[in-house]
């Protein structure tokens, strides 16, 4: 928690700004939604780390996907992810987005979330506790520090593969591709 080290603020304000003001849009898909309210309210209070839930994806830079992802939700997740402002980070909650988890044999849920959108951090657990969420937030800080939270760069770099995976799943998508050329600025 190097928030009050003025030298770091002067050296790299952008990185520090992103570390200590994560505006989270949480997609209440799946069962992880039951641990988000306790972690943003009185008992655990994520706001002391600067994590605040915001209403729209435009204002957010942290995207919490809190549980299994069904086919209908994935479309909404992809659009929300593409609407977010550029340095954006994604965290997958629980074991369902990692490898399908409890619903590994369900016909309506996707098994691996990072085939469709880039994910920076995973929290294991069949619905992780608020402490695990805060460990993930602090872990995300170190990733941002070491420039390793580069999900959005990966998405930009090999957008063609992400797009082809999405189209393999849905056939024709009704919104245009985000970047015309791979690695476009």
């Amino acid at each position, binding site marked *: 928690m190097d928030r009050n080290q003025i030298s770091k603020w002067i050296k790299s304000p952008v990185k520090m700004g992103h570390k200590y003001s994560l505006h989270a*849009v949480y*997609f*209440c*898909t*799946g*069962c992880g*939604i*039951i*641990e988000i*309210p*306790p972690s943003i*309210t*009185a*008992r*655990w209070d994520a706001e002391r780390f600067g994590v605040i*839930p*915001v*209403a729209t*994806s435009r204002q957010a830079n942290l995207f919490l996907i809190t549980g*299994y992802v*069904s086919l*209908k*939700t994935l479309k*909404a997740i992809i659009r*929300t992810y593409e609407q977010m402002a550029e340095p954006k980070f994604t965290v997958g909650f629980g074991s369902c987005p990692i490898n399908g988890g*409890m*619903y590994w*044999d*369900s*016909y*309506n*849920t996707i098994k691996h979330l990072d085939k469709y959108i880039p994910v920076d951090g995973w929290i294991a657990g*069949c*619905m992780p*506790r608020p402490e695990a969420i805060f460990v993930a937030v602090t872990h995300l800080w170190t990733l941002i520090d070491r420039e390793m939270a580069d999900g959005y760069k990966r998405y930009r770099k090999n957008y063609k593969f992400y797009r082809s995976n999405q189209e393999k799943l849905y056939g024709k998508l009704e919104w245009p591709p985000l970047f015309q050329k791979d690695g476009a600025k």
Partner: protein
Amino acid sequence: MRKLELYFGPQHLGMVGNFSITLNVEGDRIIKAKANPGYLHRGFEKLMEYRTWIQNFPLVCRINVVEPDHMEMIYAMAVEKLAGIEVPERAQYIRTIYLELARIASHLFGLWAYANMLGLDTVAQWAMYHRDLILDLFEELTGARVYHIYIWPGGVRRDFPPGFKEKIIKTLHSIGSCVPDYNDIFFHNKLFYQRAADIGKLNREQVTAMGGVGQVMRATGMKYDIRKIEPYGAYDKVEWNVPVRENGDAYSRIMVVRDEMIESVHMIFKLLDKMPGGKTYTRTPNPFKWNIPAGETYVRCESSRGELGLYMVSDGKDKPYRVHFRTPSYSHGLTILEKVLQNESIADVGNIMISLYVVAPEIDR
């Protein structure tokens, strides 16, 4: 006036689960609302047909995340009825205390969602803090905060740890001592009354026609509570009454929820005093070779949102043949919500939806 199509989208602050409502809006008034669920559908009943009776237990409490305990109870009651297992007396008492604690936690979660939709964050934070105190009790009893897998066919997984009874009483007293604060800041707040009175008004004929259950029905004056009609667990061994209100709008639904919470606290104290000793678990056969005799059953229990039913068919093998959950949010969220949202203002969409206590994972299962 300009007509707009507004998405009360799948991703929404303060909404419980993913559930999108397409509103045709004229100015500030809603003309037509169309609910489209399905964002949380995982084919639950299909998955249960691939797992044996015991394997289904950890699965069954994950249908509805706000209140997993009544799901375990309903599945355990169905399995016991089909297999003919007798549950010891002490296990019935423990189950009832456990379910009432879960009901209080679920109502506090509903209060968080409702106060959030009205914009009163202070009550939302307090309610969530008190719910966390109850989750600590669950964590000590069952080892997990939310998904406890505590009710087992034939009883409960383990008895109360020593000193747990005093802990329950201490926690409930600490929550009860805050009720006057809740009353001043929220329940007796004139602004809450103005925002919630005559909103989403339903009379008894409409509710019976559209299959309303639980507090939606109790807010129209009918004492409809499965714990009284078909008592299960130890509900008929303790004296308690069903809180009821008259005019069926959002305000009376929330007040019914408030009275129910207080009623549950008193009921827990009475149950704790009358709890007998003895075994809490009857042996069930080896789970791998446990074939339940063929048959079907429909069992009901009162979850915090209304009548929760389970229709189960077994064809004598070791896996259930067909399972169908009748969840209270199904009729509330689809038939009643679309009817009641007509010509209400946009500001009240969340208000009405959470006063009906619609929880999305219950609808799509």
